[in-house]
């Protein structure tokens, strides 16, 4: 296998899965340590990962997501090889990865070290004990964030957000800012996210229903209301689920934790701050280089 890879020039010292902040930071640090055989693979058609859809400020020196990505790309070595619109569909113990893309079809790549920086995904409504119909108008908070900030599509108001973690708080503030009616439902008795994300709740007088959850959806075609744990019904046309994130580690199923594998960013653990993602990415790049 290795021989074929070398002949076909599909052998890399370091393969990095994911071109978000963690993957880009890892690539840059490995490059700065002298590694020149690096391939970054990204399933979307852009670099920068989730920051792409983060219109709010607070990254680095008070930048928003796209601005922060730009600073990363400005400092990014030109000759680093990356592929967009490419999904890794398998990782194998023989240090090969199977890639799928329009350009190359299904292709096997050999690597010496693998950095998994595949980010995380949101817990979606179907995973929760929520009864009722299955109408249109139910999204994950991040899905709506992308729709608003990248594609300019606004949610139908009123909006209910389940969960007051950072994403829930950020979305509540943004929807209030653009004139939408919004309410939060939080199962605990206090708000969840960082303090700096909480002030929007007070500023826009966003109602928060504490100590309860959503138990039922209503509406035949489109969402019309949700029922809370105490039986109260909240009329709404949009429900955003913001109850948590899960690291994307499914690619590792069946391969365990070999010494050539390095995890960083939200696919390792969920990070609250961009600085710790950058730090973890750098560390992964360094430890991959050390093993070469």
């Amino acid at each position: 296998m290795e021989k074929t890879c070398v002949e076909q020039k599909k052998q890399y010292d370091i393969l990095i899965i994911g071109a978000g902040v963690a993957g880009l930071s890892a690539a840059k640090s490995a490059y700065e340590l002298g590694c020149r055989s690096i391939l970054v693979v990204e399933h979307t058609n852009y670099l920068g990962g989730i920051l792409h859809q983060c219109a709010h400020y607070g990254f680095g020196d008070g930048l928003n997501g796209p601005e922060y990505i730009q600073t990363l790309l400005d400092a990014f070595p030109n000759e680093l090889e990356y592929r967009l619109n490419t999904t890794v569909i398998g990782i194998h113990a023989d240090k090969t990865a199977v890639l799928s893309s329009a350009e190359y079809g299904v292709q096997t790549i050999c690597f010496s070290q693998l950095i998994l920086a595949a980010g995380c995904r949101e817990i979606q409504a179907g995973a929760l004990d929520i009864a009722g119909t299955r109408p249109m108008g139910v999204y994950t908070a991040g899905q709506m964030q992308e729709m608003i900030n990248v594609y300019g599509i606004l949610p139908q108001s009123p909006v209910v957000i389940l969960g007051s973690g950072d994403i829930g708080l950020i979305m509540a503030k943004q929807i209030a800012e653009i004139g939408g009616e919004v309410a939060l439902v939080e199962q605990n008795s206090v708000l969840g996210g960082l303090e700096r994300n909480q002030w929007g709740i007070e500023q826009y007088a966003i109602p928060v229903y504490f100590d309860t959850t959503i138990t039922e959806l209503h509406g035949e075609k489109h969402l019309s209301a949700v029922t809370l744990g105490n039986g109260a019904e909240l009329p709404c046309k949009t429900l955003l689920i913001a109850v948590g994130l899960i690291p994307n580690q499914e690619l590792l199923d069946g391969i365990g934790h070999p010494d050539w594998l390095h995890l960083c960013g939200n696919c390792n653990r969920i990070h609250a701050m961009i600085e710790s993602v950058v730090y973890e990415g750098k560390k992964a790049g360094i430890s991959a280089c050390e093993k070469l």
Partner: protein
Amino acid sequence: MLMKDSAVNEQIKYDVAIIGGGILGCFAARNLMRWNVSAVLIEAEDDVCKGITRANSAIVYTGYDNKPGSLKAALTVQSNRDFAKLCEELDVPFSRCGSLLVAFDSEAETVLQKKYHNGIRNGVNGLKLLSGAEVLELEPMLSANVRVGLYAPDTGTVNPWQLGIAACENAMANGCDVWCNETVSNIVRSENGYWITTSNKKVHAKAIINCAGLSADQVQNLLYPAEVSLDFDGADYLVMDKAIAKPKHVIFHETAEGKGITAVPCTEGNLLLESTARALTVPFASTLEGIRSVKDTVKAVLPQVDTTKVIRSFGAVRPNLRGRNGENISDFYIGNPAPDFYSLIGVKTPGLTCADALGRSVAEKVAVYLHAEENTAFSPVRKGIAKTDGQIICQCEQITKGEIIEAIKRGATTVDSIKRRVGTGMGRCQGSRCTYAIERLLEEEIHGENVRRAKETI
């Protein structure tokens, strides 16, 4: 789906109109094409197989449950034998995984024995009554408390809407027209058939096949005094993440109170869990009690199944057929209130198993009435959408752009229609990562068509 006839308010004539594009209507349409008749399938929703076909247990039964001598018993036993061939013709995945009906108490034991003997009388192959130890050998994931099991090796599983859509595509390829977004509002008799008024059209048909699902009694009532009526039960379903450990067989759970939960290892790789029947609240709405009771029961029956890994839950509707005096009709009912009018009303379990046979039966009756000749050009073969390499749009299920575009070419006009043709959004993120990308592909592919979009305003 795209209409074949675009004219609005146009008066159109067909030999046969099939009302209702659930799996039964789709198979009636497919089988009608075995004859030289013109036909139109009229569906109220924007796609076929969106009603009770969709909220189905996906099981191909063997027929040990059905009363000896009944139409259900005869059709189920025969349909089960023919099922692999049917799925091969229509290029739909079918898994003959076998089933275990298991009981944990001695009262249920007698039920299993009764079903075993019933099955033998009906001609079901391979049935075996097993001890608890024998059951566990076949299915180690079951609770060690299992006392007895009825093994049916011929039980299988198939995706109900995939099968229905395949039958619809096959009917279309053989010349049947399909109208979606057309609700039948009125039917009146004419000299040689019926005038049917729908949302945007008026159509004449010499004969009608009524497969209108939950509304089938009402459609028949538009013309003929009610011989039968429908009332409804509900059920709750959980779809589990593909990654969890799951049983190899369909598991039916028999309790002292009757039928318990059902666990189905679906062809897609997900485990589907179904509650026992309950009173209907809102159609197609699940209940919290139902969801929780399925999870609790699964913990007792299949303790190794990780019930925290649910990716979707939904509610189903089950029709119960009643006669003139409210009595329960347990056999399949093929209504024939006039020589040119056939109805399939109140078809439930094992309707999926028998969909082709029921469709063929009504199609033949109508063909005989019309003195139609056999269509020698009929082809029973349909090709499914092949897996292709390339750019992956649905990350969870690894569905490529090419597969999505093929679904659009075959008539899908919504994200949901694409989902039901290629499986996008069926995985653990349930479309939260790919829905918008698919909407953009729809827009690119269908300029000017009525694409349902999430574009909304505050």
